[in-house]
């Protein structure tokens, strides 16, 4: 069993590396039909997983370079006042130690960046989250953390971390519950 697990994990590793290399060369027609820009996080012939939605940008905010190409980058950590002060206000994600340019790149404004300095597309933001939340990323990849929809034995759709967790304030927001059931004594 242990051996099998090892084999499996090696297979998985090989598979993810392959995916990383070949991402963008995805030839599955079905996926192309749904969204040519979406990429698969897992595909072993039997299971295919595709993103359901684009990253949830606030309206009119992307690409960031629209504004930032005209502004001299200021790498000094500071309180934001004229723009993005709304984000500054809600920012609650290890705010003591982190700020914008730990995840957003100073020069390539339309990319995210990993701690290593490697640039990252917004569609792959889960890799950025996974730098700290490795166990969550592992569970998410196998469909245990987060939500999967579609087919239990076939094509599945996934949501990015940021669809449920605001990256600037990741705690899941409270919801209004649906009405409670009718009480037995109120059934006539």
């Amino acid at each position, binding site marked *: 069993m242990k051996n099998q697990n090892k084999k499996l994990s090696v297979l998985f590793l090989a598979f993810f590396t392959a995916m990383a290399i070949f991402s963008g060369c995805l030839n599955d027609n079905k996926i192309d039909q749904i969204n040519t820009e979406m990429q698969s996080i897992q595909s072993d012939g039997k299971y295919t997983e595709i993103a359901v939605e684009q990253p949830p940008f606030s309206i009119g905010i992307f690409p960031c370079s629209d504004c930032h190409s005209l502004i001299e980058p200021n790498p000094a950590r500071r309180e934001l006042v004229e723009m993005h002060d709304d984000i500054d206000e809600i920012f609650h994600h290890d705010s003591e130690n982190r700020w914008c340019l730990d995840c957003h790149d100073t020069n390539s404004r339309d990319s995210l960046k990993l701690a290593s300095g490697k640039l990252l597309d917004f569609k792959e933001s889960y890799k950025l989250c996974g730098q700290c939340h490795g166990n969550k990323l592992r569970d998410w990849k*196998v469909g*245990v953390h987060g939500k*999967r929809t579609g087919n239990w034995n076939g094509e599945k759709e996934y949501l990015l971390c940021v669809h449920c967790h605001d990256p600037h304030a990741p705690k*899941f927001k409270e919801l209004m519950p649906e009405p409670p*059931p009718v009480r037995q004594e109120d059934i006539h």
Partner: protein
Amino acid sequence: MKKDNSRRSFLKNISLASFSALALAGCNMKEIDEFLQKNFRVLSEKEKTDIIRSLEEKYKEKYDKEFHVSAKPAMEGVLFGYALDLSKCIGCRKCVYACSEENNQSREPQIQWIQVLQMEKEKGIDFAHSNIHYNPEKVPEEGYFYVPVQCQQCENPPCVKVCPVKATWKEPDGITVVDYNWCIGCRYCMAACPYGARHFNWGEPNVPAEEINTNMHYLGNRPRMKGVVEKCTFCIQRSREGKYPACVEICPVGARKFGNLLDPNSEIRYILENKRVLVLKQELNTQPKFYYFFGV
């Protein structure tokens, strides 16, 4: 004229009388056929097809919509399992209503296959002090956690054992189903179920025509009658087509997981092998295929 009081004439008269009563009661042939219909498990393919066609016609007449009623059998090599992440559920009850809509549960009188139990974190899993009528502005509430309960699809189902007419049974893919036409409404199964997962149609079930789900399975979400028992079937009309059940798809926190227990690569197997898992009322040896786990 001499009065004939013989046993023979009594039997003759009573059969005549009952036949004419039947005719006078306005029973058409279809209703008689339905009344005399055999248990689903002994029906031939042809009989199934005929019954389904006549059901589709009947529903069309009643709701003025096209219906698809399936009798698709279990897939080979599939045993369904379900897992629910107790560390994620926030008690929003979205699953309860998605289930009701998908499975055509009576709205009035209300029947709901999923009950969400609110429990105190201090007490742990404690059915006696749980509350299903919680209704705050926002969930989750501080100090509480939530345990949604529906049919646990037991491997050793007590409800099946007690049915005196074999109107309920466990299918090869592990789903316990009810033949509503065969159910006599004795409710023994409800008494036997330790999870309160079976529900009785005390009144004529009522689903508004505009809300009825026309994609049906004979053993699942087809309209029920007054006087029969119903329960969760893991959305048999969806799961046998490869789809996730409605409660899995609606859950806003992704707490609900579903898949094939016999497939070592399924999410459900990953959970069983890697997470801390529990079943409800394990001491009763019902062997649920509905697992609760802690995802954190």
